[in-house]
């Protein structure tokens, strides 16, 4: 499942490495999809680079998905699905966020569409986004307690 990163021929990974060697922590290839794991502190910088560099041109952020890996630490996983319309390529960025400090930098300034995706993840997972213009609950009522998509939140019955 996990390929050795330095033999991976994926040009996106190579470009990202050229930009900042520390920005690529791991490269996962599974079923023809590439996932680049990025350390939390390089997320915003990598996002800007991927969106602006003309040979990459990842202008469309199609989705952000949170995953709760409870009880594994770092507990939360954020998956950013990027599309380059000009080059017809998809790539997934992944950032891992620990439970004690569930904060990631917001990418809303890079891709304005991230606004609602980040609000949804805040709403359902309780991960906060630094620099988000309006980090409030989006699907649940404002006075809701708990974060339903966390694995320690029951599917049925009262908490």
């Amino acid at each position, binding site marked *: *499942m996990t390929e050795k990163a330095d033999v991976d021929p994926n040009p996106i990974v190579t470009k990202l490495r050229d930009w900042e060697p520390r920005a690529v922590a791991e490269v996962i290839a*599974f*079923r023809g*999809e590439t*996932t680049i794991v990025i350390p939390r502190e390089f997320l915003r910088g990598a996002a800007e680079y991927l969106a602006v560099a003309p040979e990459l041109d990842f*202008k*469309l*952020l*199609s*989705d952000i*998905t*949170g*995953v*709760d890996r409870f009880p594994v630490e770092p507990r939360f996983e954020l*998956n950013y*699905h990027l*599309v380059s*319309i000009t080059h*017809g390529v*998809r790539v*997934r960025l992944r950032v891992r966020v620990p439970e004690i400090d569930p904060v990631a930098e917001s990418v809303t300034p890079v*891709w*304005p*569409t991230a*606004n*609602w*995706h980040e609000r949804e993840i805040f709403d*359902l997972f309780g991960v906060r986004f630094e620099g988000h213009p309006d980090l409030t*609950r*989006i*699907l*649940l*009522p404002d006075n809701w307690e708990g974060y*339903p*998509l966390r694995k320690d*939140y029951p*599917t*049925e019955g009262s908490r």
Partner: protein
Amino acid sequence: MTTVRTAVGESKTMILNMGPQHPSTHGVLRVVLELDGETVVKARPDIGYLHTGIEKSGEALTYSQAITLTDRLDYLAPLSNNLCYCLAVEKLLAIEPPPRAKYVRVLLTELTRIASHLVWVGSHAIDLGAMSVFLYCFREREEILNIFEMVSGQRMMTSYFRIGGLALEPPPGWLDRVDHFLRIFPSRLAEYENLLTENRIWLARTKGVGVISAENAIALGVTGPVLRSTGVAYDVRRAFPYSGYEEFQFDIPTSTDGDCYARYLLRVAEMRESVKIVRQAMEKLPAEGPIKADAPGIVPPQREKMKTEMEALIYHFKIFTEGFAPPPGEVYQAIESPRGELGFFVASDGSPKPYRMKVRAPSFVNLQALPMLVEGRLLADVVACIGTIDIILGEVDR
């Protein structure tokens, strides 16, 4: 409330609550509008009134059971959702449905696109005051729903596509029904166009209303007809083909106007393209052949085999009691739904239930563009703009 400076002096703005109970909000959308007279200064969509926790429910069901949840997302295009979910799980399992199943899938999802666009044209017209188009559109949609009922037994919540293929063999004579529809439909489409395309009231209500640029649309993640109305020919069927779409000949209609009228013309043009695709799918469809992949332990065995083979009986029992377990990993599968890029992110931890099932709902993302479309325009245009995005609250709120 804020004070705004106008040509005739200062004036106070007013907050107006639109929805969640409002006929033109297509369900339970609430928009908080800040008005200066009749001009919209600020619009803030408020969603979540239909949140049913579909993603959380999916984690408690097996992979096959979760198909039934997908129908309930975009209830005007249930087969598109079925297709996207099944493709995602098939990618996770690395299995491929047989050609016959693929073509039936393409055929039915394109009919779904026509049915969904018909509801859109009809309800958008009724929002803007043209009653009769609505009745005509529902007449043709009914015919498509009859085809769905014939094939799957259900008009709307079909759950007809299953992991590895189709649920049932389509009944004899169904292609005649499809053929009949394809023969009458183009002339019916011309009828709606007669009523709307050059109608002066229609033009006044839609032309130059809700304009968005290509740059802004991409930045806001907008896909589907709304993005194509700005001149960007991004269609997942062409950009990242799935289910055999690379074999089909069809055009991607685009426009550079970026207004409500352009989006109306595009959706009508897309219905014509879908008719072409359905025709091709009918020609390509083999008369005989399996409709389910050969994947023991994942696809339920044939009834006949269960009566003679011990193994088949065991597989049947295991599939329906505990399900099947894909290898650990994550996949993202996108398709072009009538509303834009519909995506399923499915994560497996090696158990028979999806560890995480995330829906990338096109309506949810496209709705973010609403403030950009309406701010600075008249209150009456808000109705036209909500309609033109073509939101389905079932998938916005999930």
